[in-house]
């Protein structure tokens, strides 16, 4: 066996002379980062396969939980059948996005917590993979997995209790959710730092952040029913635009609305670098105080 180390032992060595060398260097780095991103997804696929029965049980629980919310629509007094169907859809979209967000926040927050529990965190953090790719890979898998679960949840509940959405524009709803996911990943990266700073309470604080975001975003009600100060917070929550846009697409069949798209784009552009910067500070703090390894 010979050493074919992944890096040069020479400090400051480049891939070659001049611009061509720099391009080759960038190309090699990009390739390695993409392979690393694939590794994150690959690992999560393995784990999802191994925990399939847990996932199945969780799916049944989520469907049951969603039904308890959607049935509230049938208890609305003096509502016509069409109105009940509309309320059911409003609740179902809210519950589905809650479940989708829950998956993203769970994956992101447990980026650190889960690896610390398994004992692999030090090996991941000493690997030559950029933190952005590491966290974005985790987020990308969460979005993919969350979208599959959200789709199953939506159609399972709709089929179980007979919700009709004849005008639904599912393509627009999915596109908006995918766009909102960029912001959710950014905010998820911010919350994933919590277990680094507080190994004992960090993961729970991530769930608190998820709950607060949905409360102010009008998960089962219009934003307008909330106190004014909460409505102001709703403006900077990506879930507000995801919920509003998805409801409009599924109930009224509208396409992508620019009024929902531009706030999501701005929040994504701000949230991802901000989340990364916060995570880097948290990582530095953990490395300075020896908190990377501590269990709890």
């Amino acid at each position: 066996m010979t050493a074919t180390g992944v890096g040069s032992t020479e400090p400051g060595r480049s891939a070659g002379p001049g611009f061509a060398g720099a391009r080759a260097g960038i190309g090699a780095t990009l390739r390695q980062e993409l392979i690393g991103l694939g590794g994150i997804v690959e690992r999560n696929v393995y784990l999802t396969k191994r925990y399939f029965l847990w996932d199945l049980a969780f799916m049944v629980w989520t469907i049951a939980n969603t039904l308890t919310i959607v049935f509230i629509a049938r208890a609305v007094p003096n509502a016509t059948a069409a109105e009940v169907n509309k309320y059911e859809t409003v609740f179902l979209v809210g519950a589905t996005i809650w479940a989708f967000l829950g998956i993203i926040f769970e994956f992101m927050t447990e980026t650190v917590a889960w690896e610390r529990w398994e004992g692999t965190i030090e090996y991941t953090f000493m690997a030559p993979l950029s933190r952005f790719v590491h966290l974005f890979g985790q987020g990308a898998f969460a979005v993919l997995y969350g979208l599959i679960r959200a789709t199953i949840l939506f159609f399972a509940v709709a089929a179980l209790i007979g919700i009709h959405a004849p005008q639904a524009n599912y393509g627009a709803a999915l596109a908006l959710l995918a766009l909102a996911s960029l912001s959710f990943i950014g905010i998820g990266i911010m919350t994933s730092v919590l277990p680094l700073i507080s190994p004992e309470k960090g993961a729970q604080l991530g769930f608190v952040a998820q709950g607060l975001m949905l409360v102010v975003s009008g998960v089962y009600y219009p934003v307008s029913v909330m106190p004014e100060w909460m409505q102001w917070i709703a403006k900077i929550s990506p879930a507000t635009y995801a919920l509003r846009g998805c409801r409009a697409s599924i109930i009224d069949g509208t396409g992508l609305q620019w009024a929902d798209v531009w706030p999501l784009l701005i929040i994504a552009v701000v949230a991802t670098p901000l989340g990364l910067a916060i995570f880097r500070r948290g990582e530095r703090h953990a490395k300075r105080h020896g908190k990377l390894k501590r269990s709890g």
Partner: protein
Amino acid sequence: MTTFAAPHTTRPSIRRVPAVEVRDLRKEFRRRDRRAGRFARRRMPALNDVTFTIERGECVAILGQNGSGKSTLVRLLSTLLINDGGDAKIFGHDAFRESRAIRRLVNRVSVEASFFKKMSASENLSYAARFYGMPPSQTRTAIPEILERVGFPADRRTESMENLSRGMQQKVALARALLTSPVLLLLDEPTTGLDPRSKLEVQDFIRTVRATHDATILLCTHDMAEAEALADRVGLLDRGELLFLEPVADVKRRYGVRTLEEAFLAATGRVFEQEENEDDEYREVFG
């Protein structure tokens, strides 16, 4: 502070830059001090002005009791901790400012095997290799090969890690470290807790790696026989201070003793197995 440099080499061309250069390296942790008040904290040195050099291709063992600072040293060199003073260079790269470059050169085996327990040996190695830029086309052949080399049975490659013995898991940990062809291998008590047979197998494999792989090895252990058998030079880390780092024969000559245990007694005034004090226990928790 004492400097412990490696003996002069006759091959200057490949030894232009030392594999590891540590100078006045210092690390301390803050701990709660209940005696001084509910929220009081005090600083606890884990490494105190440690200086040494390891040349490329050398195998150096650092001996020390639990809590002596061995694991803190390994974590500092593998970019998992940030220093509080001094500096460390790995093949000329600053360990605290060029961590990205360091990570390509270094891999580590720790006392705990540390794997996703529901995943198999092959799956754990596969995703770990991706982080080092190894694509599936490469790992498809490299993983079975490396597992065979460490003596891991082929029919257990797809079995969950949680069903494997500690010795088996440690072999997979060695395979994971070597899969990425590190030029600096940090072994942090790789045989602690293993049964005698597994221990010998792992030690044999470390010898094989030395003979066939262009790697520099830093072995941290509290097994004096293991250090003597595997390393070119042996160092003693005691309560964060490096007391010596030289060939075993020189250590014995320096203290006029026959064994490393006696050298430890002569250097520290304590027997090696002696119970640590409360501060040592604390260092161990953070180490």
